[in-house]
């Protein structure tokens, strides 16, 4: 009951935020929400299955490019591209997952990285279709979603839906099956669970959520760039999850807020942001391996 009270308070605060924050802080808040959705999507696979994907940028960027291309080439209104972006990202995840989830640990990580870089290279070189390294620019999401407050609420809704989805899956038999496969694949198989099917489903759902984050990024940035698909984008989700605590439901979101806010603060003052980030990560890994969520008593997801 007490937890629910805090949750409602947090929700009220999040809803009131656009009316309290000045323009720029709101822009940063939207970015934090987008990364929060992306990191939560990534962390679903990481926490439930123990598989560390280094290729989630492909799904983030896949969603973003689907939205951008539909807006630019087919003149679709922004919001209508959401289902397409999610579907495209899911299909991409299905394809990459089909080859990757059979492998384990470092092989899985390297394979997802390689596939994502492949997708990046295609987008980066295909000038006639994707605009190559120039990206797709000048995408205005229309009067409504062009407004920062509206976009904030859209991002908040999608993030809340994504988080709820992940939470429900965690408590569903599907989640139990995934954790069984994570903890002991041989025994899981012995009781009749097919690791391949479960892992592929988890990976695909996670990719779909990442695609929704990419969809949001296009409206915020008014453009899409190959950087969205580059491995550094995948690293952002990983860093956010580690920063916040991969074992807690809210961990990746918390890490995202800290990552984005700290980044905005430091980058506006010095060009040594990577140094600061490195020190923060070092301190966390050494002294707070549970991430920032570990400060709250280290309680795992509830």
């Amino acid at each position: 009951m007490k937890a629910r009270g805090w949750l409602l308070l947090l929700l009220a605060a999040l809803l009131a935020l656009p009316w309290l924050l000045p323009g720029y802080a709101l822009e940063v808040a939207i970015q934090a929400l987008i990364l929060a959705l992306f990191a939560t999507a990534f962390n679903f696979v990481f926490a439930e299955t123990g598989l560390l994907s280094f290729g989630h940028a492909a799904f983030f960027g896949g969603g973003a490019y689907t939205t951008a291309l539909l807006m630019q080439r087919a003149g679709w209104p922004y919001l209508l591209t959401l289902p397409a972006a999610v579907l495209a990202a899911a299909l991409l995840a299905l394809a990459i997952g089909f080859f990757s989830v059979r492998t384990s640990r470092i092989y899985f990580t390297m394979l997802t990285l390689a596939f994502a870089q492949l997708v990046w290279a295609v987008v980066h070189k295909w000038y006639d279709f994707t605009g190559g390294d120039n990206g797709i620019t000048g995408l205005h999401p229309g009067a409504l979603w062009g407004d920062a407050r509206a976009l904030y609420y859209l991002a908040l809704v999608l993030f809340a839906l994504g988080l709820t989805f992940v939470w429900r899956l965690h408590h569903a038999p599907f989640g139990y099956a995934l954790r069984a496969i994570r903890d002991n694949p041989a025994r899981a198989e012995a009781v009749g669970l097919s690791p391949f099917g479960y892992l592929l489903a988890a990976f695909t759902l996670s990719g779909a959520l990442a695609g929704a984050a990419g969809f949001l990024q296009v409206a915020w940035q008014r453009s899409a760039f190959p950087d969205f698909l580059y491995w550094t984008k995948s690293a952002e989700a990983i860093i956010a999850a580690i920063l916040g605590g991969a074992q807690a439901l809210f961990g990746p979101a918390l890490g995202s807020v800290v990552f984005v806010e700290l980044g905005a603060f430091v980058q506006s003052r010095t060009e040594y942001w990577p140094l600061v980030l490195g020190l923060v990560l070092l301190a966390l890994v050494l002294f707070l391996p549970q991430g920032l969520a570990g400060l709250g008593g280290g309680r795992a997801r509830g």
Partner: protein
Amino acid sequence: MKRWTLALAAALMVYGSGAFAAEPIKIGALYMLSGNFANYGTSSKQGVQLAVEEINAKGGILGRPVEVIFVDHGKPDQAVREAKRLILENKVNFLFGIDSSSVSLAVAPVADEYKVPLIVTHAATPRLTEMCLPYVFRTSNNARMDSWAAAAFAAKQPYKRWANIGPDYEFGRVSWEDFITRLKELKPDVEVVSEQWPKFGSSDYSSYITALMRAKPEAVFSALWGGDFVSFGKQAIPFGLFKTIKFYVNPTGGALQALEPLGKSAPEGLLVSARYWFLYPETEANKAFVKKFHDKFGAYPSYNAGEAYSGMMMLAAAIEKAGSISPDAVKAAFEADGGLKFESVEGLKWMRPADHQVFEDLVWGYTKHTDAYPFAILDPIVVVPAKDTIYPTKCAK
């Protein structure tokens, strides 16, 4: 807590009451200040610093001092966020600078949306001005003009077997395409024998160099720049590339960031350019600028430092002419009377009203070693008149 609030309120009141005589004109300058190409951003920043110092020493613009906030633009998404911060938080009146082409394409629509004029001094993709955005201006020449100038030189040469080696991304591809299309128009009997596309930022060029030499070209076009040009040059010399070909042309090879690291090892007789060359024009104004720059920073101004300096001075002239800092007044000042003509230290700059692209004489020259400098300089200098670089635009005016 209460005391702090009071102090803050008092401070705000002092500020609001106009205790500071004239409110500064705020300019947000975005440059590449970190990473592999930070030496470009740093020299651009120095050019801006010198310009602003001079402007403020003379009483500012319209009697208001100029205040510049420098920001590292990084990659496009960081740049968009920083641009929004400058606009929304720092309330800048203008955005300025930008080294990277992809960053310029990302920031331009944002600046335009918030109606904050953006003055670009370095990023050279022709696409920027072909977006025809009303509040976006470029005060330096772009890559297409460089390629066309290179083609005009190439057409005068007797060589028919041409090859290319360029960085494998938009700038390298567009430069070569513009160059070879133009050259074939001017001289239909040229033949392309080899195209080499090393990755942008490569360190090993040996396989590309040998492939290039196997094709036996008479002449080579290259848009390799910065560290890429330096690595390529250092590796091509021992292979004897520059001895086997008769003609080498590179639109960005005249940058000090390329010639200084090569030092005395740079081959002579390469036809190179930079958008500004510190020894040209030989006017008092330019000599004074180079001296002041050298005294202040201990280095000669690179082309992008010169462009940043001139761009800031040109913006100041536009604001003076407009008599106001309102975006529409400044836009009108840039466009009026057939486009603003501004006499900068690097010569006359003309702002074409339709696409907000500046046209100016382009400085080319053949590399040559002298006793006066520890690096190759351009001698003799060949100037391409601005009128020969004017290409059609799709922007309507």
